[in-house]
């Protein structure tokens, strides 16, 4: 816990004010907005340098030692040794499983953000806490999702923070959330899904609240394609923590 506070003091954790956002698939369609309590979120994704420190201290999370049920063979596959990530070190760590991401955050006395927390913060543009109806901003975020794949990604924190003071929610990497399989596209995205199963299995495109928010679609689709042990070259994470009650 102390470790986490030290980092937060160094400006890495941002206090996120409580608020609400409109999920693409509300639990109860009659209640379109979901409330999110205040919490703390990393200002930037976890970097290769950060993660290298973690595996140095926690050998069981090194590539050669991690059990196959916790990380697939892609885990840190581009690293040249157990604790040697490729340069540049201040880019987001990817090739990490959900289990590994959780372990990292736990090690720091933190946790992964929930999908609601992550999505809530991701709706902010540079100057508005809720830009989800701002077509120009939506088009800008979508551009990244549709842009050519690249082998690596950029350095963290290079772009202006959003209105919460958080960087890189869009444009660098996909990010793990605690409940990544929560909004399941489960089987086939085009099935409608009735109210009861909406949240858990067939929730489909047909019942989405804002069908033009393609970027959110893609995030949800992406998360649904994953299992906890999966790693991909494009997926990293950041940590969150509960707000200390004053």
């Amino acid at each position, binding site marked *: 816990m102390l470790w986490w506070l030290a980092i937060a003091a160094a400006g890495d954790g941002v206090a996120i004010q409580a608020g609400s956002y409109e999920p693409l698939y509300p639990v109860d369609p009659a209640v379109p907005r979901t409330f999110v309590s205040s919490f703390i979120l990393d200002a930037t994704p976890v970097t290769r340098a950060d993660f290298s420190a973690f595996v140095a201290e926690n050998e069981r999370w090194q590539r050669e030692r991690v059990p196959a049920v916790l990380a697939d063979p892609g885990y840190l596959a581009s690293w040249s040794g157990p604790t040697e990530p490729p340069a540049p070190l201040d880019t987001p760590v990817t090739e990490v499983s959900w289990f590994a991401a959780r372990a990292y955050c736990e090690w720091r006395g933190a946790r992964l953000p929930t999908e609601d927390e992550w999505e809530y913060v991701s709706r902010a543009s540079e100057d508005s806490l809720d830009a989800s109806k701002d077509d120009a901003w939506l088009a800008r975020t979508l551009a990244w999702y549709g842009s050519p794949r690249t082998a690596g990604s950029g350095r963290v924190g290079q772009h202006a923070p959003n209105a919460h003071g958080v960087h890189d929610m869009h444009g660098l990497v996909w990010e793990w959330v605690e409940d990544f399989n929560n909004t399941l596209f489960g089987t086939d995205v085009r099935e409608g899904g009735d109210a009861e199963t909406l949240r858990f299995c067939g929730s489909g495109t047909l019942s989405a609240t804002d069908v033009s928010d393609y970027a959110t679609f893609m995030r949800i*689709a992406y998360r649904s394609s*994953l299992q906890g042990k999966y790693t991909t*070259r494009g997926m990293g994470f950041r940590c969150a923590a509960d707000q200390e009650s004053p």
Partner: protein
Amino acid sequence: MRSILLALATLTACQAPPAAVAPVPFTTGGSAAGDFGPPVGDPIIAELTNAPNVPPPIDRDEPATVVVNLEVVEKVMPISEGVDYTMWTFGGEVPGKFIRVRQGDTVEFHLQNHPDNRMPHNIDLHAVTGPGGGAASSFTAPGHESQFTFQALNQGIYVYHCATAPVGMHIANGMYGMILVEPPEGLPPVDREYYVMQGDFYTVGKYREKGLQPFDMQKAIEENATYVLFNGAEGSLTGDNALQANVGETVRLFVGNGGPNLVSSFHVIGEIFDRVYTDGGTFPQENVQTTLVASGGATMVEFDVEVPGTYVLVDHSIFRAFNKGAIGMLKVDGPESLGVYSGLELDSIYVGDLGDHEGIIAAVTEAEAGGTVTLEQQIAAGEALFGGSCSACHQTTGTGVEGVFPPLAGSDFLMADKERSIGIVLNGLTGPVTVNGSDYNSVMPPMRQLNDDEIAHILTYVRNSWGNSGDAVTAEEVATVRSTTDAPAGAAH
């Protein structure tokens, strides 16, 4: 037609069928008749091809297990000269690989999502019987592979596509292809088989605006396509990439439409489809000019080619052909068949509603015969002829249409080479040209039917109008070019 086939079928039941006519069953029995028992022999790795090629016909009398390995690759590819687009592909090209199996086969499908890909993907094959067509079982994260198995119960030609959210965007980025399920006895043999698939594309930049063009979601929702393309790129079926056939051959096209939005009015200029397996169904329609190909649908067309020349494949929703790229070509080589198509017979022009201009042309022709024709007379005659022969495309003002028909007014290309311009009118022009700094890549038909005098007048007029200024073109000059150049075989009108 159906009753004749039926009559034939009943006839053949009691006497030996005539050699050339195979009995035509009235029904295939649909999926209920599609299970020919368990697979026989070792699994076969399917041979997959890129468009416009089709894997060879299946030479097998028993059902088999066919293994299909298909890799999804996201990559930047040209969709037009100087225009790039981030395609999401089944197998590295748009459209995706062509898959060929036999009815009753057990297909073991492996979908691989390349580790560098940004998106998860899946596949819905319309040839699959089962919810989602495979989509549910094939949802695959980057760097992973999924496997599912289905039995191909229905014969026919089917589209496959990605069905990952947002579905429209995955399809708009090129995620579609075709799978052929051959009937157990195979398809009737033909000389050529080709794979042509249409798709519509939505870019932020205008048609042919250069550079890497992002997907435009708004245009896609409005169904306002920037490009309508055969086989994923302008030029993929023209020039050196044109489909080939020889006179006397039978050509079969598997024509699919990936969409995401537009329904195709598929037509081949100068041909009549002898058979269209409408909607990809089993029993053909005969003698069809234009056939609809639904978005997410496919069809099979067959025709014999009797006359050499270039046949232009279009979406006959025609602005798509001339302004959005939906053009392909089939080049047919071989001896002329004048009984079928004479070429030009009557060497006189139709100049439309030119009224008193006809007098001018007659006067020039007379003056010319007497050796007294002036530049002014030639220009006047040329103007009249231009109205009937050229202005439909290049416009009466000679300005052309940006991106489609190059300008003649102030054209550096025209004025640079007189002999070449004569050749263009006689023999037409295909392929990329740059006129006043703008690129064009289209087709101008040859106009050999104009006589030497007429071409001389037209070009004299063109070379002395709208700011152009040059010397006269004489009938002799035209005659020389005519006798030293060949028109491309069989001009398409």
